[in-house]
C-alpha cells in the first residue's frame, strides 16, 4: 500500500537499508547474510547501519561461499526464517546459480506447494563506471527466463523501499536487483531522479504493477532500473522536438505487467524497449513478442525497436563502454527513428 506522507529524501541505498531495518524490527525471523554486509554495510550500502542495530547474529558476514550461504538461506527459510542474502554483484551468479534456480526457485513447485521459501536475494547490477566485463552486467532476464523466482528491479528510492518490504513479506523467493548507478552512493555518479522522497513508515509497492513515469502519445518507451532515468533525459530532449514519449518503468519482470505495456502501445502505436541487459534472448525480445502476439488488437505505426547491450561483454575502456551500453542519446535517436519509420 502506497503512502503519501513523504517528507524526507533518501537515496536508493538508504531506502533499501531502511526497509530491511524496519522489517527486521517487525519480524525476528528476518536476517541478512552476505559478504561485507556487516561493518562495511554492504559494498553498495544496502545494509548500512544494520550491524550496529541488530548485531552480528542477524547481520552476518559470510565467507566467499555463495553456494553455501545462499543454500543456507533456503534451509533456514524452510524452517520459517526470512533470510535476505546479498550476492555482491549479479555477475557472480555463476558460482551459486544451482542453489538459486534448481532449488530456491523450484522446491516450492516440486513439493506441490508444500515448501515455502521466503528468501530475498539482493544483488547489484549495471555498468557506467567502467568496472568491465565481470562487474557491470544486468542479467535480470536470465533470472526471469527461469521459472520460480520473482524478479524486482527498482528505479527509485521510493520504489526501492516499497518493493523491498514487499519482497521480504512475500512467501516466495525474490531476486532483488539494484543498479549501482542509482543507489546514490557518495562515491559513484548517479542519476538524481533516483533519490526521492520516501515515507518513514513502512509501505509496500505491489509486484506486477508497472509505473507510468511520464505520459505521452507518440512512442511507448518500456524500460526499467537506471535506464528509466536515461529515458527521462531523452524524453525531455525529444519533447523539445515535439515528440511525446510515454515512459513505462516495469519495476518487476516476474510478475510482468503485460497490460500496462499493451495499453500504452495501443495508444501510441510505437514501441521502444530500452534495456541495459544483453540484447539477444532477453527482456527486449520478450516485450517485443508480447506486442507481436497481440497484433490482432494492436495497430502499430512503426516496427518495434530494441536497445540493449548487443551481444558483446561489457568493455572496460570509457569510449567502448559508452558505445556498448545504451545512453540517453541512443534512446533519443531510436525514438526519432521510430517516428520516421512506417509499417508495411
Amino acid at each position: 500500500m502506497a503512502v503519501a506522507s513523504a517528507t524526507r529524501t533518501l537515496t536508493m541505498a538508504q531506502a533499501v537499508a531502511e526497509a530491511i531495518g524496519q522489517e527486521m524490527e517487525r519480524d525476528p525471523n528476518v536476517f541478512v547474510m552476505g559478504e561485507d554486509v556487516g561493518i562495511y554495510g554492504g559494498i553498495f550500502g544496502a545494509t548500512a547501519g544494520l550491524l550496529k542495530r541488530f548485531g552480528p547474529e542477524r547481520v552476518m558476514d559470510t565467507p566467499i561461499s555463495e553456494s553455501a550461504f545462499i543454500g543456507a538461506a533456503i534451509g533456514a527459510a524452510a524452517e520459517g526464517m526470512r533470510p535476505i542474502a546479498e550476492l555482491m554483484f549479479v555477475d557472480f551468479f555463476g558460482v551459486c546459480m544451482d542453489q538459486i534456480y534448481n532449488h530456491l526457485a523450484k522446491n516450492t513447485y516440486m513439493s506441490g506447494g508444500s515448501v515455502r521459501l521466503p528468501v530475498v536475494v539482493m544483488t547489484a547490477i549495471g555498468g557506467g563506471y567502467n568496472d568491465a566485463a565481470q562487474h557491470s552486467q544486468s542479467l535480470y532476464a536470465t533470472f526471469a527466463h527461469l521459472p520460480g523466482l520473482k524478479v524486482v528491479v527498482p528505479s527509485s528510492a521510493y520504489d526501492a523501499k516499497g518493493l523491498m518490504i514487499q519482497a521480504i513479506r512475500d512467501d516466495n523467493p525474490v531476486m532483488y536487483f539494484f543498479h549501482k548507478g542509482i543507489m546514490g552512493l557518495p562515491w559513484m555518479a548517479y542519476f538524481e531522479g533516483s533519490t526521492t522522497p520516501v515515507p518513514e513508515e513502512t509501505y509496500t509497492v505491489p509486484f506486477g504493477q508497472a509505473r507510468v513515469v511520464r505520459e505521452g502519445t507518440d512512442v511507448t518507451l518500456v524500460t526499467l532500473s537506471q535506464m528509466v532515468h536515461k529515458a527521462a533525459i531523452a524524453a525531455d530532449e525529444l519533447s523539445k522536438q515535439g515528440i511525446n514519449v510515454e515512459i513505462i518503468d516495469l519495476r518487476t519482470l516476474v510478475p510482468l505487467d503485460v497490460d500496462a505495456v499493451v495499453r500504452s502501445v495501443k495508444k501510441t502505436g510505437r514501441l521502444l524497449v530500452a534495456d541495459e541487459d544483453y540484447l539477444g534472448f532477453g527482456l527486449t525480445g520478450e516485450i517485443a513478442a508480447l506486442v507481436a502476439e497481440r497484433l490482432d488488437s494492436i495497430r502499430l505505426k512503426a516496427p518495434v525497436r530494441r536497445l540493449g547491450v548487443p551481444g558483446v561483454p561489457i568493455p572496460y575502456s570509457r569510449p567502448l563502454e559508452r558505445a556498448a551500453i545504451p545512453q540517453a542519446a541512443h534512446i533519443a535517436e531510436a525514438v526519432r527513428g521510430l517516428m520516421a519509420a512506417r509499417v508495411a
Partner: protein
Amino acid sequence: MEPTPEQLLWMYETMLVIREFEETMAKVYLEGKLPPHIQKGLAFDIGGGPVPGEMHLAAGQEPVAVGVCAHLRKEDTVTGTHRPHHFAIAKGVPLDKMAAEIFGKVTGLGRGKGGHMHLFDPEHKFGCSGIIAAGLPPACGAALAAKKRGKDWVAVAFFGDGAANAGTFHESLNLAARWQLPVVFVCEDNKYAISVEKTVSTAIASNADRAGAYGMPGVRVEHNDALEVFEAAGEAVARARRGGGPSLIEVKTDRYMGHFQGDAEAYRPKGEVEELRRHDPIPALAAHLRKRNLLDDQKDEGIRRRAHGRVTEAYDFAQTSAYPDPAEAFQHVFVG
C-alpha cells in the same frame, strides 16, 4: 553409545522396509519398459511404465540411513540425495505419500510434480535433490535456524563419495564449522559415482580425513554395519545437539544395484555384487539381535510381515491413486 533394544529393533525393521521398498521398486520400475511394449528397436524405455524417469535405488546402503536416523527426532532436518528413499524412510516420511510421488500421483508428497529425486516432506523435515552435493547448504541453513532460535535441533546432510569432490561440499563444511552449526555431514562411500571409482575421482582414500580442513571431527566407518554407523553418528549427533558444532562421517557402504535401474554396469568387476551381498547388513543385524535375545524366528516373522505389509500398502496406495489433472502443471510455481 549402545543402542537400546527399541533402537535396534527399529533399525532392523526399517532396513527391512527399505530393502523391500527398493526391491519392489526395481520390479515395478521395469513394467512397461521392456519389449514388446515399447518403441521398436529399443531394449528398454526409461520413459515407459508406471514409474518413468531415472531410478536410483539404495539396496545395500540401509545401514547409513538407519544408523544415523536412529538418533534423530521429528524436528531434526535431513537432506538426501538423488538416491533418497532409504533416507526418507528412515526419517519417517510416510511410505504411501512417498510411493505415490514416485508414481507421479496427486496423492504424492509433491502432488506428482517432484518425483523420485525430489521428495519433500516439510512435516518430517525431509528434502532431497537430484543435484550432487546440493543438499549440504540447506542442511546448514536448517541448522542455522535452529541455532538462532535456541533449539537443540540438528540437521543431517547425506551425500555420496562422488559429492565430496564438489565445491559445495567445501563451502558447506567451512561454513558449518566456522559458524559452529549443529550439522552432521554423512558421506556414503559406495565406491562409485555412477561408473567413476572413488580412486579415480578422489585424491585421498578417506573423505573423513577432509574434516581436518575445517577443524571438525572426522570419522570413517569401515564396515557397512548399522551398529558401527549408529555409534559414530551417535557421537556426532550428540555433539551437534549440545552445541559442539558439526562433524563429518564417511561410511563404507555397498550399492547392490546399478547406479540407476537399467545401468548395464560394464564398469563393475564381475562378481563384485555377489561378493558384496555376502556381507548383507540386514542378516548381520538380525544375528546381532538374536545374540542379544531380542529376536527369534517368530518375532522375526512378525517384523518381516509388518515390513512387507507397510510396503505393500504403500505401493497399493500409489498404484490406485489418481494422476493429477494436467492443469496442475501450471500451479504451485509460487505459494499464496
